[in-house]
């Protein structure tokens, strides 16, 4: 509401905000996290167990692992052909390249969705009707036409319904892996909190279901051939002996999940605030400056806090080692020797309890370490230095 107004390009109008580098950076961080998360998930949960593979010998097999090509190939073998072309499903590729085409497809669908969203109500209604009519026409018309035109012939017209049904099944195989990617991209670029949380929920469900299906108690009764995660976290050989390769992958999944959610939510939160502002304040220099302050602060937080969270989780997982070696080093008695040799303390329970202890210490450090004060002093000094320079 100041007399001076910022140029339209710097205003807080949604159209201009969508082009602001901070917003784009947050969206890119979120998108990259999502794609990396999918890739890590595929790597961790996308394989069948060795015994299951061996049981099939040379023939094609399928287990409900988090990977789409195996299922589609198996489906192709069972049904003869696929409705979706191989270049679109990634079946003509190998390794990690198999996900490229479906991801591009997800981006394409998101772009179309956003385009439809930005149209008027009537246009949107007609597009919806058009898509529905075309889909149902494709599903039913061939069957109806062949049935009506050849009423007296004893032909099996039901075959015409088979194609659309196969298509739906193919979408299910593809969707298991790419539905959260599509929903996630739609959430990030289409600014939908619902889609963002749905994606996180989906991934947590996949992890949970995989954990249950690979639990020893379950696999003894029903073995679906899923490859279980190792029961031991392994030797810490990375980051200077801080983290094991398996732990790193698992931490990556957890961090990417949180990073995706937080970066995506940040965009929506800032856009929501800007959209609530009246027209005249959107070009007010004070509002624009503070918006920049807030969003820059958010970016710094996102990067700083997420790095610290990753580091804290990694240290927490190795905190048992630290405790055991400390106890061992402090006294040379029988008890300390037993503790040092204790295997239980390095297994699940010991690891989690010691990690929990470490997190309690970290949380309590808020009252001991005045780091915010320290950063404040640095910032004040920096501001003074800048003002004397000018």
């Amino acid at each position, binding site marked *: *509401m*100041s007399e001076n107004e910022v140029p339209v390009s710097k205003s807080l109008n949604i159209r201009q905000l969508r082009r602001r580098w901070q917003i784009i950076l947050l969206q890119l961080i979120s998108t990259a996290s999502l794609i990396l998360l999918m890739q890590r998930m595929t790597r*961790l949960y996308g394989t069948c167990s060795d015994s299951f593979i061996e049981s099939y010998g040379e023939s094609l097999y399928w287990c409900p692992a988090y990977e789409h090509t195996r299922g589609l190939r198996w489906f192709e073998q069972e049904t003869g052909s696929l409705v979706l072309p191989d270049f679109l499903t990634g079946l003509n590729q190998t390794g990690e390249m198999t996900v490229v085409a479906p991801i591009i497809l997800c981006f394409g669908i998101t772009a179309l969705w956003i385009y439809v969203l930005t149209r008027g109500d009537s246009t949107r209604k007609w597009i919806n009707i058009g898509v529905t009519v075309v889909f149902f026409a494709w599903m039913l018309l061939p069957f109806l036409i062949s049935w009506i035109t050849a009423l007296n012939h004893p032909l099996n017209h039901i075959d015409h319904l088979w194609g659309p049904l196969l298509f739906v099944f193919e979408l299910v195989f593809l969707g298991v892996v790419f539905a959260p990617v599509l929903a996630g991209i739609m959430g990030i670029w289409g600014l939908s909190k619902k889609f963002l949380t749905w994606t996180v929920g989906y991934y947590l469900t996949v992890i*949970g279901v*995989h*954990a*249950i299906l*690979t*639990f*020893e108690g379950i696999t003894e009764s029903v073995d679906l051939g899923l490859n279980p*995660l*190792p029961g031991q*976290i392994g030797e810490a050989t990375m980051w200077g002996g801080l983290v094991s390769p*398996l*732990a790193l992958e*698992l*931490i990556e*999944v*957890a*961090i990417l*999940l*949180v990073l995706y959610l*937080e970066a995506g*939510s940040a965009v929506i939160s800032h856009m929501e605030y800007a959209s609530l*502002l*009246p027209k005249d304040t959107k070009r*007010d220099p*004070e*509002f624009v*400056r*503070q918006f920049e*302050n*807030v969003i*820059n*602060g*958010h970016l710094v*937080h*996102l990067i700083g*806090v997420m790095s*610290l*969270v990753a580091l*804290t989780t990694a240290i*927490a*997982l190795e905190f048992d080692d630290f405790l055991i070696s400390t106890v061992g080093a402090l006294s040379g008695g029988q008890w300390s020797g037993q503790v040092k040799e204790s295997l239980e303390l390095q297994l*699940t329970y010991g690891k*989690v309890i010691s*990690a929990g202890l470490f*997190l309690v210490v*970290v*949380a309590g450090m*808020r009252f001991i*370490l005045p*780091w*915010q*004060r320290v*950063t*404040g002093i640095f*910032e*004040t000094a920096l*501001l003074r230095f800048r003002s004397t320079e000018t």
Partner: protein
Amino acid sequence: MGKDRVRFGGLDMWTRKAAIMFTSGISLILIGMMISNFQLMIVGLAFLSLLAINGWVAGHSDLLIERQTSATNVYKGDDIVVSLTVTNKSYRRTQQLELFDNVPHEMKMRKGINQMRMNLGPGQTAKLRYVVRCPLRGHYTIGPVSVRYRNAFNLFVNETKMDDRSDITVFPQIRDIEEALLRSDVPKMYSGATTLKTPGPGMEFYALREYLPGDSFRSINWKALARTGEMMVNEKTRDAVTDVFVIVDTRDVSRIGTVLKNPLEMGTVAAASVSNYFLKRRDSVSLVTYGSRMDYLPPETGDKQYFKILSGLASVEAKGSMPLQAVTNALSPRMSRGSPVFIISSLEGDGTTLPAIRNLSGKGHEVIVLSPSSIDLERLVSRIPRMSYEVLKLERQNRLTAIAGYGAKVIDWMPDVELSQALLQIKLG
């Protein structure tokens, strides 16, 4: 202008998101432990780490908040510019703050907005400026300022309030009333009449001026004519100082109509305008309001009285059912003989109106009844059947005619008619 210092303190409150994240983290760890799954445990640990690390970043800060308003007394419909200056006096960043200045819901935001998100570095200042319109008269308070620290990930909040408030009084609007429409020609009967230094009909000499066509021959100053050779007339100081009594009905029935258009609102505008008119003429004006109780402001003149009248009118509310006769009976000993009395009332639901006005007229007061038509005001909010409306209108007309029969000048004030136009009925009548 208000100035206050805000310091955040105490522990931050957890948001719903933080609570969900904490319970999810604990649940995932426990389930992970139960089924020996490291992934679930690590996701749970990451959630708890996020909470622990975010707990380090607190919105502790020392803020200086200053509020300035363009006016504290305004007329109904006027705008007020409110400026808030927020300065971070500490050497720490404030982190994400949400500033919200509480504005009464009766005020309408005209320009800008009363809230802002900010993140101030050490010593930095932010300015929030907005304009509110005051469409309803009354006494209002802007403030307190709510300052909410919100964690970047919306995990913790800490809210505090700056208890500084700015009081705003919204006076009724003042309408222009043409001098010709209102005449107060009854001189003050008791001693101590103010000598007016404005030209007008009176006894005391004011100044000499050139003769204008229409001037009375009696006012020609013959000596001046002989001396200068030009026709000069004597102008006199107006000595007609009057006690004008303005009685405003604030009973419960005066709320009939809409929030902006009802007998009380119309009455306050009329009372303010009439008072303004007479006070400008240096007459003494007394304001009497009656509803649940009678409030009497003794006759006085000058700006102070004008402010008292407007303040009184700003605070009136529609309540109670005091009869007019009780008011006139109580006032009778305090009224100077022959003073004009303005009664501003819808005249609904009060059987004592006729005897009260009869008594006033009988005592020689010039009674002017300005009556907002409550039936027509009610039509603005509810549908009245035509027949019922006609009957009610006829009843009202009979009441007004009866009052006029006692020598009072009665004005039937329709909702869509301006005050000056309504007052024209006195002249025409």
